[in-house]
């Protein structure tokens, strides 16, 4: 058993909001220039995806959208740290994670357009379906991790949740189970300061990462808007998990720059000032400054990415607008894995009923 690294306070940081590279006594990260540049590109695309989806919701093309704006570093960075065979368990907001796991953004759109409840195949991407019931996925992730141990594999799990979710029984039970079985799981909490209208400081009387102590595993606080620190901290936690030493809780300190979802009106409960302050801590901007300052990328590079992202967003928009709809009778599909006579009969009656309307020319 390795001993828990002492929780760092303030947050682990390798890249300051001003775009300056700094060193940390416990964490470092060595990336190639190509990797730095690709991280920048991923974050720009994830933000573009978010903007596009928000606009599509406004235009009535999506039923709802939960914005990831401002959380790109936490999401892209933590998912970048995963190995191909690791498994991610996201909430409903982790578009950056789904993106990094190779999920087709159109599949995310399907969920928010109301065409599918799952979209992609979790097993194919090793990225679970979005989980909406707060906290449920944490226990599922822990169980998956327990299976990784039983299989004597090197696979690890990352499970995401928000600051609000830390109140749920499922999340705390997840901590206990993971600790009991030394499950190879990383608990990745994005503390974006808000749970709908509730500021996290109201319910979080001790920093979230410190709670890990009470459950018997290490907790780390990381600047969630610093993609380099997020990667370093997540990689270390995954390594620890793989080595059999058990779980780690990472609290990525970030900010929900947008509304909770497109249904929410944050002017009812929060001040504009906070938002302005957090804009100065923008995760993409600071990486951009670092790349430019260190001569890793120049204006042409940034401009080209913007042009690519624009073109890509344009295609996405068109594709969402022309998305087809599943057949009505597909509502009976996949309720059970094995054949089910009673439900088959119901589907047949459903089809008969609708054919009846078609014959009579009545719109059903």
């Amino acid at each position: 058993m390795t001993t828990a690294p002492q929780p760092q306070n303030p947050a682990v940081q390798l890249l300051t909001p001003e775009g300056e590279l700094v060193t940390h006594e416990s964490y470092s990260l060595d990336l190639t220039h190509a990797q730095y540049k690709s991280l920048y590109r991923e974050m720009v695309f994830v933000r573009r995806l978010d903007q596009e989806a928000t606009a599509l919701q406004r235009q009535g093309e999506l039923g709802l959208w939960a914005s990831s704006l401002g959380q790109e570093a936490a999401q892209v960075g933590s998912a970048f740290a995963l190995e191909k065979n690791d498994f991610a368990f996201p909430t409903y907001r982790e578009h950056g994670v789904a993106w990094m796991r190779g999920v087709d953004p159109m599949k995310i759109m399907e969920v928010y357009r109301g065409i599918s409840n799952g979209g992609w195949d979790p097993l194919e991407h090793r990225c679970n379906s979005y989980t909406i019931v707060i906290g449920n996925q944490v226990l599922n992730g822990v169980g998956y991790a327990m299976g990784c141990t039983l299989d004597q594999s090197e696979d690890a799990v990352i499970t995401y949740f928000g600051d609000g979710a830390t109140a749920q029984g499922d999340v705390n039970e997840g901590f206990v189970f993971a600790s009991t079985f030394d499950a190879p799981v990383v608990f990745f909490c994005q503390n974006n300061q808000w749970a709908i209208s509730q500021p996290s400081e109201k319910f979080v009387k001790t920093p979230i990462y410190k709670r890990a102590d009470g459950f018997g595993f290490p907790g780390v606080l990381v600047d969630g808007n610093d993609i380099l620190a997020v990667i370093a901290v997540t990689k270390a936690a995954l390594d620890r998990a793989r080595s059999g030493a058990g779980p780690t809780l990472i609290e990525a300190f970030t900010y929900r720059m947008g509304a909770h979802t497109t249904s929410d009106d944050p002017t009812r409960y929060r001040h504009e000032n906070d938002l302005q302050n957090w804009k100065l801590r923008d995760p993409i901007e600071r990486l951009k400054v670092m790349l430019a300052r260190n001569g890793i990328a120049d204006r042409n590079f940034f401009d080209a990415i913007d042009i690519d992202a624009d073109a890509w967003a344009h295609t996405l928009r068109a594709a969402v607008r022309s998305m087809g709809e599943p057949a009505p009778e597909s509502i009976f599909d996949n309720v059970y894995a094995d054949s089910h006579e009673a439900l088959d009969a119901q589907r047949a009656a459903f089809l008969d009923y609708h054919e009846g309307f078609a014959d009579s020319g009545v719109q059903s």
Partner: protein
Amino acid sequence: MTNDLTIAKALNQALRTAMEEDSKVLLFGEDIGKLGGVFRVTDELHKDFGDHRVLDSPLAESGIVGTAIGLAMRGYRPVLEIQFDGFVFPAFDQIISQLAKVHRRTNGSVKLPITIRIPYGGGIGAVEHHSESPETFFTHIPGLRVLTPSDPQSAYSCLLSAIRSNDPVIFFEPKRRYWDKGFVDRTESPVDPWRARIVRTGSDVTVVAYGPMVKTALQAANASEYSLEVIDLQSLSPLDDRSIADSVERTGRLVIVHEAPGNLGLGAEIAARIGKSCFYTLEAPIERVTGYDIPYPPSKLEEHYLPDHDRILVAVDSAMEA
């Protein structure tokens, strides 16, 4: 005092009335303070009654119900909000194991006058877990009362009665009807929530519905060539089968409508009771128009799941043709 209110506003007024008449009434739930709840049913109440009467809870439903039980034991009368139907399940254990059983367990000493408000049902184009109709899970549990209003007047009267009740009440709010407007009489209670009410008289077929489906049943009644009597149950537990039977004695035919899946739904219970009590007057098999036995579908397909007035008319026709 009378005026036209939406269901959401009528519920808000009922909460206000209850809080004014009893200082032990307090509201507890997620985002119900400054935000006024995601449907604004608690709008302005935090501002007017303060932190000690309107409590924003941590994000944990088992916590909300579990602590409310303690609060009630201490003499409070908590009115809880569960944000959406699909999020009541973390609280299921507390509801089934404690809330429903404490009065009986303590030989009547401990009363738990707790109301759990739950917006329920589909038709609003929402993502998963936001459109479910879980009422049957609760009607099945002895010790719980279950109410659901269908219009602003019944919303006002039912919620006040739920809060005044000394038993735990699971209170289902038809969320897709929140913005429907109607006349509300607040001077007295013209509606008895524990009784089914005839919302349209008719002579050919009795159509029993509740919550969001009452409006759909009324639409069917308007469109039907037959004379339909529409009954709004209001109370799902206890069931007022006497009122249903009275109507069926006159019409001889019964159609039951609900959004929840048909399998072992309320329709099954009503059919069993009326099948017995009205055995000699029934002129046709009892029909049910319900959700299918599937998980609630993604929103683009929900119209195919939800009972609509066409499906009710088809059921009415087969009752008439039997």
